[in-house]
């Protein structure tokens, strides 16, 4: 029989679910986020309540079986927030626990392969954000940016931007997931901004610094001047910068 497990979508929740599976010796399971579940009559359903102590024990077990990188990759994959991939993470974790050696490079195994594919997609989106984020300077000297990434990559971006822009205040705001990061010259904190109905996250023209317009203008001009018309290759251009990213790119607006 298949047991349906419902969890809250957090990494802690995922690890707690693994704990429950081993605790109750469950065979076939189907792990779902609560909001994805529609009730049917004959299901054996179990609510997983995220529990730090249990999650920590599972994480400790994973750390013994995987390299630090291997644990990181599982975390990054789950962070993607991709729908209905949970059973692949469960499959991966069970395979790891059931094997006597470290299997994180066993790409012939379908769970290992799937996690590796998801990680590749997430890393790619992270890299794209490192490239495509465009800051606008505000009057108080803070650099502000709005993004809409395919996956939830803000936590993965923190280190890169903190190291790079150590001497300027900055905000990166994910308008799809409605939260952001703010660097205050010392630490990075997660923030939520309440935008009024008429006031969208991307409407900030009134508070821009004096020289912002000049540099945006210069950058757009630069972008045009470096193009070589006789080598035009639109297909390649769009493959590198898919159209969905254009609306936040200064040079493409």
């Amino acid at each position, binding site marked *: 029989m298949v047991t349906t497990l419902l969890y809250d979508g957090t990494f802690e929740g995922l690890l707690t679910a693994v704990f429950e599976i081993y605790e109750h010796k469950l065979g076939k399971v189907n792990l779902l986020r609560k909001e994805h579940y529609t009730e049917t009559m004959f299901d054996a359903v179990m609510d997983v309540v995220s529990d730090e102590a249990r999650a920590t024990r599972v994480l400790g077990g994973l750390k013994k079986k995987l390299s630090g990188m291997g644990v990181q990759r599982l975390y990054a994959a789950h962070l993607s927030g991709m729908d209905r991939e949970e059973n692949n993470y469960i499959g991966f974790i069970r395979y790891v626990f059931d094997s006597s050696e470290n299997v994180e490079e066993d790409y012939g195994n379908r769970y290992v392969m799937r996690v590796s594919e998801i990680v590749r997609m997430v890393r790619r989106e992270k890299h794209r954000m490192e490239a495509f984020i465009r800051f606008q300077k505000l009057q108080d000297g803070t650099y502000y940016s709005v993004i809409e990434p395919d996956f939830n990559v803000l936590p993965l971006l923190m280190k890169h931007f903190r190291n790079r822009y150590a001497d300027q205040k900055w905000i990166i705001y994910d308008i799809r997931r409605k939260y952001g990061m703010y660097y205050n010259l010392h630490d990075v904190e997660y923030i939520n901004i309440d935008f009024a109905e008429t006031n969208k996250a991307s409407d900030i023209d009134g508070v821009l610094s004096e020289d912002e317009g000049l540099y945006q203008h210069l950058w757009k001009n630069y972008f045009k001047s470096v193009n070589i018309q006789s080598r035009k*290759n639109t297909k390649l251009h769009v493959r590198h910068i898919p159209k969905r990213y254009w609306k936040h790119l200064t040079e493409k607006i």
Partner: protein
Amino acid sequence: MNEERITEKLNILADAAKYDVSCSSSGSKRKNDNKGLGNASNGICHSYTEDGRCVSLLKILLTNHCIFDCAYCVSRKSNDIKRAAFTVQEVVDLTINFYRRNYIEGLFLSSGIFKDADYTMERLVLIAKKLRTEHKFNGYIHLKSIPGASDELMNEAGLYADRLSVNLEMPTEAGLKLLAPDKSHQEMIKPMGYLKKAIIQRTEEKKIFKKAPMFAPAGQSTQVIIGATPENDNQILHSANYFYKNFNLRRVYYSGYVPVLADSRLPALNTSVPMVRENRLYQADWLMRNYGFHVNEIVNDGQPHLDLDIDPKLGWAIRNMHEFPIDINKADLRMILRVPGIGVQSAHKIVSARRFGKLNWDQIKQLGVSLNRAKYFIICNSSEFERRDLTGNNIKQFILATSHSKYLKNTQTQLNLF
């Protein structure tokens, strides 16, 4: 800043610099450990032009005034164009402000030669120094080394820049003589020799004293123009190989000649840019640097041109059918890397994954291998494999029939002299 004037300058001096194709911002390891601005490590392409090339650095000339008259260059003395020059402060402001907005990874600064080599080089170095010392800028800086500049200036440049480069422009000495009568091949190679020695020496020092300053941590590169002079691929790749081997260059860039000037020594203005050939040269270059191929395996006197229809790796494989098929579950990494359709990443994944069990077609496909090509050259844990005794030519036809070249509509053949 006067908006109109600075815009015009930027347009002129970015336009003149764009034929330098290098835009790499990787290979350095400059950290932001002084709580300053920026860092440089793996390289990021922040945007792409409509011709599909990466925009990673603010690539500009300090000035397009030039005392030289090289036929292939838009900035040559006798060309009647608008001239402009940035001040040191303007370049610094542009770099910092673009960098802070995450437009760029850093600065690529080149220049026309005004007055003399030392005078020009001194200004380039001054900009890099200002960025590093006054603005605590740790982003990427690529400076052009001006042939003929003094060793002291080269040395200073290496202390502030991540990468230095001298463009050879023409793959052979004869080509250079024809198109750039003011430049000498020897003079261009001299700074490369100096920098190579300095880089080796500083790297040794750094191993002993951790605090020793970095010296051009991203090394040297160069560029050759393709299709302006009649050199064949054999000459070009052997010349590239010579520079990789003797000057420890990180990269050689190949720039398909864009006809910008009417000159009897050059291809006519309506000739199209040799983009396919340029692409094949890059593929061949990759095979030399990352796939363990010797240059003679790719081109030689009997095989002086790269095939334009197929990539050089497939070309090598169908000329060497006696090496195949190989067993993916047993062959060593060196041979797996030589299979068409298998890249560096998937080759390593294969070697990792097969420790856990023999791989079959499905699994190999999942690893990212392009079976469309690879299937003719490998066997795996499956009773199905290519049993027909195909010749190299058959395979080429099958592969061409099932793939569509992105270049097919603008193929052109390489100038064949005999």
